[in-house]
Structure formats: C-alpha cells, structure tokens
C-alpha cells in the first residue's frame, strides 16, 4: 500500500519549516531528499566498520569491501545489467560522462568524426563531448526538438553519417521533463553499429530502467537524485566497450602491476576506479535502491503521474501560465512562466512562502534558447510530494501575480 504519510515520515527533512512555513520541496530535479535509512546506513558505515576497501587483510576492510561489492550487485540488479563488471562507481552523472567522453574519445574518435546529441541535453552531456571534440578535431551535431519539446525522431536517421561514432542522449530532460524515445534512438543507432550513451540523471528515479532491455551501451546516473548520498554516481557500460577503452584516471586500485617502465591495468570494474572511491556513498546508494524497492517503482510512477496531472490542471486554472515541454510524454516536472513576470521574481516570493522551486536555465541553456527564453520556473515533484503541497504552490503563484502585476 502507498501510504503517503508513512513515506513522508521516512524523510526527516520534510518535517521542517522555512521562514516559519512548512517546507514544500519541489526541487527534486536538482537533488532529492534522503530517507532516514540511507542516512543511517552511511552513519553505520562510519560508526561500525569503516575501513578502506580492497586493500587490508583485516576484519573491517573485509566488511567494507564486502558491503561495497554488495552495493555494486544491488546497482546491477536495479538496472538489470548483465554483469557486476559493467558497473563503475563514479562521483556522479557528470563524472561518468566525462569518463566516457575521454576514454571513448581517446580510443575511437578521430579528426572529422561526429558525435550526435539532442537539443534537450543538460550542460553535463554537452560540454564533456565538446571538450573531447575540440581535442580530437571532431564535430558535434544536434538532433532538434519540436515545439512541444519532443524529439524530432525522424531526424535521427538523417543526422547519422558514416562518421558518427557515438550518440549521447538524455533519458529525460531536466529542464522541461520530456522523456526521450531512447529505445528507438538506440535501435536506429545500432543499425549502423553506433553506440549510445543515455544520461539517466532524471530517468533512474521515475521509472524502471532496464539497460539490457534498452540495449544501451552506456547508462549513467547520480546517487543524489535517486534518494542516495551526494558524491556517488554510476557508469554502466557494456563490457565490450569498457574492456576496449583506456583508463580515465591513474592511481591506486586501477592497476595490476606497476613499475617505472610499464603499468598493466586491473580488470573491470576496477580499471576505471582509480584511488579510494566513495565506497560509503555506494553503500548509501544501495540502501536508497533498497528503499525504492520497498515502495515499488510502479507505485512511485503512479503517484508522481497523479501529482503531475493535478499540478498541471490546478496551475492552468490560475491563468496566464505558459508551459514548456507540453508533450504528453513527460515526468513529474513542470516548467513554466507566469504572464511576463521574471522567473527570478517569482522564485524569490515562492521561497519566502516555503516553496522550493528552481528558476533559471536549469543548466540547459540551449533548451531555453530553443524556446527564446532566459529561463523558467521549474517545479519538479517526486513520490513524497502531495496535492496539498501543489495547492500551496498555486497560492504562491497567485501571490506572485498579485505582487508583480
């Protein structure tokens, strides 16, 4: 059973007030709050068995290493990867994309080659590719979107050329909530033997992700956006690519043998995990995934979908709102502007009413440019939010209109 009161009580911070008003947290697209059991798992790691992994022969190191590898198995099962060797722990989505852009680029990209992105990408799935393209003399190309924010899927085949070496697409737009047809893109790309990286930063927490089902070559996400700790992220990569790609960073744990003449690298996944990783973060992430499992992803999606429809309906009733990302295929993110009111003014007023929303370009300036705007107000909801909170947001927007118009 989906008991919203019980769920809310699982997240300590949701009980707090800001400026004397109950916190309404609608900035889940930026980061999600943590359930007590994740906080407890992190605390327990430091309290009870903290020790560096893979190195010691002593008891605590054994426990830490075991928990870390269990976390890897938990992630593997959560996204349905074939092998634990395909799960690399990183610092987050951005770090994962930088790793692939660098290592894949080093191995496969030559002057004049092409990398294909979509017009919906977050800066984190643009800039690392741009840096690699500059280094290699390669070219970035962009799949455009329609006015409702949906991808012009028919352009994918047009834009793929003999020089296209990789396609990097976001699973879900962080700025406007639109879900990309990643399965179709992957199918189209694989007809030409082109691998696809999926940026799952906004996808992993809102629905089932099955990397084998998708046949994704790379799938990346952050722990902190899926109720886990900050500073931990995941890179899933098909073994054939990860085996073939050179390491990204050098250091401890990623080596097999080191001498001053020559170093041989450790096997997967350690080859891509140089230095002491954020193993406590990984343990916390695994607990977050356990927690999601206990709620059930179907229940989460259902509640979030209800919230999205309720919020859209209520906000539309207020009048004067322009929505961006009006495609039917979206997650529980609403991106909008109110009359001609600057999003920043609206954000300032809403903040003082206890409502946390995000304003600005959402690190996706090309998306904003596509719609000819500087930014939007973004309410990103998740399964611990309620219709009552949406009512408070609506009261807030009414107040904004009253003060600004």
């Amino acid at each position, binding site marked *: 059973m989906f008991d919203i009161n019980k769920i809310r009580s699982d997240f300590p911070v949701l009980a707090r007030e800001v400026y004397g008003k109950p916190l309404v947290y609608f900035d889940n697209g930026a980061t999600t709050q943590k359930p007590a059991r994740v906080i407890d798992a992190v605390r327990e790691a430091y309290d009870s068995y903290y020790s560096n992994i893979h190195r010691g022969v002593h008891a605590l190191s054994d426990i830490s290493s075991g928990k870390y590898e269990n976390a890897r198995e938990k992630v593997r099962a959560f996204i349905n990867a074939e092998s634990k060797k395909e799960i690399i722990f990183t610092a987050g989505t951005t770090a994962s994309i930088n790793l692939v852009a660098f290592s894949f680029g080093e191995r496969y990209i030559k002057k004049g080659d092409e990398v294909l992105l979509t017009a919906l990408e977050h800066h984190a799935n643009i800039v690392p590719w741009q840096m690699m393209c500059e280094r290699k003399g390669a070219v970035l190309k962009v799949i455009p979107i329609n006015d409702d924010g949906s991808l012009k899927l028919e352009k994918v085949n047009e834009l793929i050329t003999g020089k296209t070496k990789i396609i990097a697409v976001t699973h879900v737009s962080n700025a406007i909530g639109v879900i990309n047809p990643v399965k179709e893109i992957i199918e189209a790309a694989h007809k030409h033997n082109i691998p696809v990286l999926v940026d799952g930063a906004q996808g992993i927490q809102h629905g089932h992700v099955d990397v084998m089902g998708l046949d994704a070559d790379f799938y990346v996400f952050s722990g902190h956006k899926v109720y886990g700790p900050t500073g931990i992220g995941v890179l899933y990569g098909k073994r054939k690519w990860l085996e073939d790609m050179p390491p990204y960073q050098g250091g401890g744990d990623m080596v097999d043998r080191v001498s001053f003449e020559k170093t041989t690298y450790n096997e997967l996944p350690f080859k891509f995990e140089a230095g002491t990783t954020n193993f406590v973060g990984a343990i916390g992430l695994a607990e977050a995934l356990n927690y999601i499992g206990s709620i059930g992803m179907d229940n989460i999606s259902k509640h979030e979908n209800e919230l999205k429809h309720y919020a859209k309906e209520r906000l539309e009733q207020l009048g004067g709102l322009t929505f961006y990302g009006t495609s039917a295929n979206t997650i529980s993110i609403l991106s909008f502007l109110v009359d001609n009111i600057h999003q*920043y*003014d609206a954000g*300032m007023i809403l903040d003082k009413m206890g409502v946390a929303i995000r304003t600005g370009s959402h690190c996706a300036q090309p998306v904003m440019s596509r719609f000819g705007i*500087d930014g939007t107000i973004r309410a990103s909801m998740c399964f611990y939010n309620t219709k009552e909170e949406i009512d408070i947001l609506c009261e807030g927007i009414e107040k904004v209109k009253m003060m600004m118009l």
Partner: protein
Amino acid sequence: MSNNGKTINQVQDQIIDEFSLFDDWMDKYDHLIEEGKDLQLLDENEKKQDFLIEGCQSRVWLKPDFDGEKIYFKADSDAIITKGIVALLIKVLSGRTPSEILETDLYFIEEVGLSQNLSPTRSNGLLAMVKQMKLYAMAYKAKQKG
C-alpha cells in the same frame, strides 16, 4: 539622483528605518518593488552589453556618469525585485565622490535582511552590483589623480 544633502550613512539609516516597519517578508518585497519604481531607468539604447553586469540570473544594467567630482548611476533590470535592490544601492551611492563610494561600509544590506543575497552563489547579483559600482569608483578615482 539627488541625495538631498544627506550623508551616505544618513541615507542608509533612513532605508533601515523604512524596512524596520515590516515584519513580513512579503511586505519587505512589496517595499523593494516600490523602491524599484522610483529608479531612474536607462533608455532602451543605453541597455548595452557594456553596462550589463555579469553573474546575475536576472539581467542588470548599470551605467555610471562622472562629472569630474561625483558619480551618478542609472540602472535597470528585467526582474522587479532586482530593480528594487539596485534602486537602494543607487539611493545610497549615486551622487557621491569616488572616494566616498570606495570607503563606504554598506551596513544597511545586513540590517534590512538582504545579506543572504550577498553570498557569491546567490544569483540576483547584489554582490556583483556592489563590486561593479566600486570598480567604477576606482577607475574614476584614478582618472581624477591622472
């Protein structure tokens, strides 16, 4: 903008007095919005890239005018609350000599509760505006000496 013969600190104290009437944040913002309406705005053709202050989520233009003794500022913003904030700064610092501007401790910002907007990560650009005004003052001061 004339400062009616008041010293910088007299103007700061007056702003603090005005804001002390409001307990509620919404009333403070209402007052800020009103302050913004009094701002002597830039003409559209003055809203040039040169006068745009970087680092703000909303756009702010700040144009200095130096008569050899004092600096007069005009400004505008596409966000109404930001316009109110820059209006307060102009009330305090416009029509002052470069030395006065450089030496001023802007204590009213803390007193009226706007200091949370001063952190470099806050994007309304209050810090950037203050910095820009002081940079102009520094440049004009150098010119005076030269």
